[in-house]
């Protein structure tokens, strides 16, 4: 179990993380969400024992984070990097040794993972000879090389093509099955909706929302419908009382704001050829915006996607 209690981090007069508390237990995937500059990376670096909190505590499995917890932790930073001039397998082995693996064991496990990732042929090439995508794979591989109990992924999907993104998603689910803790940090909220069990929303260093994703969604109600159709999208403008949350030529998401759905559907049915109708939960993005607005922040300040 990873527990953060009242963690605060200041850089000079700037408060990067302000009295943040949350916890996550084994076998769970936690989404750490928020716009750029919200304090996600600052939080992660403290969990990784790269920087230290000014106050508050971070405890993993009963041990305050430090050299000991670093050995059972795998960290994929947002900015990727490897020793470009080292051979792939040598670079992997080195990082494994830093995590207290024996050289031979690190090499063996590295080769296994390279095979799993389809990179066996590249083991003895220099890292700089690999494509960017392959380098990303190698880096992700080194993150889990030493079979860590806590895996921290900072924007793990950025720069990955759909195939590799799927690979990472599968890996995350795999790790969850192995009863590990996965911390998935991103500013792209739609990325975590499918995989996360729990979320922590942060804005300007402050935790604004924290809890089980299902429950949070329930809490925010099922007030939206998605409609797919053939016809003129401007028909929707004639509706009153509802809000168009998302608008495309053949796809519209409506926020009902408490209005009954039947009259709306009948109206639309007269003018459009409806292909699909579905009641949906609010997106995390909507939840985030609603929450920070309620708490008195201006949501337009963050660059939320």
């Amino acid at each position: 179990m990873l527990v953060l209690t009242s963690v605060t981090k200041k850089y000079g007069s700037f408060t990067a993380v302000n009295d943040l508390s949350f916890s996550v237990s084994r076998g769970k995937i936690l989404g750490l969400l928020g716009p750029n500059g919200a304090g996600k990376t600052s939080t992660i670096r403290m969990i990784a024992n790269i920087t230290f909190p000014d106050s508050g505590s971070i405890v993993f499995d009963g041990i305050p984070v430090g050299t000991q917890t670093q050995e059972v932790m795998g960290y994929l930073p947002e900015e990727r990097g490897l020793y470009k001039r080292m051979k792939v397998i040598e670079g992997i082995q080195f990082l494994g040794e830093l995590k207290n693996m024996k050289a031979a064991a690190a090499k063996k496990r590295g080769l296994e993972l390279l095979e799993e990732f389809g990179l066996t042929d590249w083991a003895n090439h220099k890292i700089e000879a690999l494509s960017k995508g392959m380098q990303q794979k190698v880096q992700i591989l080194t993150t889990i090389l030493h079979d860590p109990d806590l895996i921290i992924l900072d924007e793990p999907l950025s720069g990955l093509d759909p195939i590799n993104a799927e690979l990472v998603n599968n890996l995350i689910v795999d790790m969850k099955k192995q009863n590990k803790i996965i911390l998935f940090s991103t500013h792209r909220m739609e990325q975590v909706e499918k995989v996360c069990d729990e979320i922590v929303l942060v804005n300007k260093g402050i935790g604004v929302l924290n809890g089980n994703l299902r429950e949070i969604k329930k809490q925010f109600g099922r007030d939206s419908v998605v409609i797919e159709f053939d016809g003129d999208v401007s028909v929707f403008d004639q509706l009153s009382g509802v809000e168009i949350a998302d608008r495309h030529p053949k796809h519209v998401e409506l926020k009902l704001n408490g209005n009954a759905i039947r009259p709306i559907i009948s109206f639309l049915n007269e003018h459009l050829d409806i292909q699909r109708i579905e009641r949906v939960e609010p997106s995390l993005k909507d939840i985030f915006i609603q929450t920070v607005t309620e708490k008195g922040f201006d949501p337009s300040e963050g660059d939320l996607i």
Partner: protein
Amino acid sequence: MNRRIWIILKREYLSRLKSKGFIIGTVLGPVLILGMTFLPAVLAMMTLGEPKTVYIYDQTGLYGNDLLTNPQEKTDLTSLKLKDVGNDEMADQIAQEQAGDKLNLKIAKNGQTPEQFSAAMNDSLLAKSIYGYLLISSDSLGKPQLTFYSTSTSDYLILTTLERRVNSLFRLKNLARLGISPETAKEINTTVSMKVFKVTESGNQEDSGSSLMLAFGMGFFIYMSMFIYGSIVMQSAMEEKQSRIVEVIISSVRPFDLLMGKILGIGLLGLTQYLIWGLTAGLIGLYGAAMISAFAGPGAGIGFSVPLYTIVAFIFYFIGGYLIFSTFYAAVGASVDNMNDAQQIVTPIAFLIIIPILMISQVVRDPNSTLAVILSLIPFFSPILMTARIAVQVPPWYEITASVVLMTLTFIGMVWASAKIYRVGVLMYGKRLTFTELIKWMKY
């Protein structure tokens, strides 16, 4: 040493040892140094490729023809050789110059007046068909007067050569005129040289010229090494930061471990390089000595030995200097984004390395003066200046102890400060670095 430092050290050392850069540097380093030593001489010889024509007009009629002949051979006028009268050095020099054929000397045609000669020569000069012309006249006392004309008067080699040849002839003629026998002349020309002995507590007496050379040599060696290996450490830290791998590494090890592993690994690499050079030089030296004793008989050899304590001191101060400066270079490398910023921060530190090399001749000349003692005790200067002092004259034990203690304390302080800067610096991007900024980081 903890396991993490060891792993970092191992990677730093092995990956560099196997690199092309190291192999090339190890082979080319001595070639470059030898090249820099001998290149000026080689170049000077090469520029003398084409002989330069100089016409001589000898009003006295005493020297002209003899200037053309080899000074090794007897001339009609003097019946003497320079060697006969003990002027071996000058004779050798002139012989060499003639062999080099730098000068193509010609005698002016008979029957010209000096004015006619000058006018004709000036024309040739401006047409660049000759290099210059020399007028030899004599004053009322019979002393030759030389006047040289040329369009370019900056080739001091030609000027001194001409002067020397006339001088040597003048001397030979004077000896002949005064009726001095070659034997007497040889006696007059005898020179003596002074041998210098150094008195030490162990009673040994030895040539002091070699210890002076040793002081300069070792000082310069430490100076070069601190710059070269310091900048390798800086580059290495900068590369890790630029490639962003550093964040992964400090999520596994403390920045202090990374810093120490890096410094020790590169330091070990430096020692390996010097060991290779040292052994090579040693083998060549042994071979050379064997050749000398084979040809010149046993006992002959190079009278140059370095006392053991000097070697020990050199190694200690060499390593100490490297450690003190490389920690700083590492901190700078970890804190900057690009080479330009790095240069700005490093320049003031470079002065700490340059100042002692500027002071070294002062210190060596008077190694026990207050100035020398104070300078050599400043921990940043000790590596160069204390080594130099020990080479020329062993300072009192308490001064050596003091410098060792001060350097150790400085090193600990530097490591402490650098580790702090390192921790903050490696995660700091896009910020222009200043000294005040660095000091602020130590408080984070």
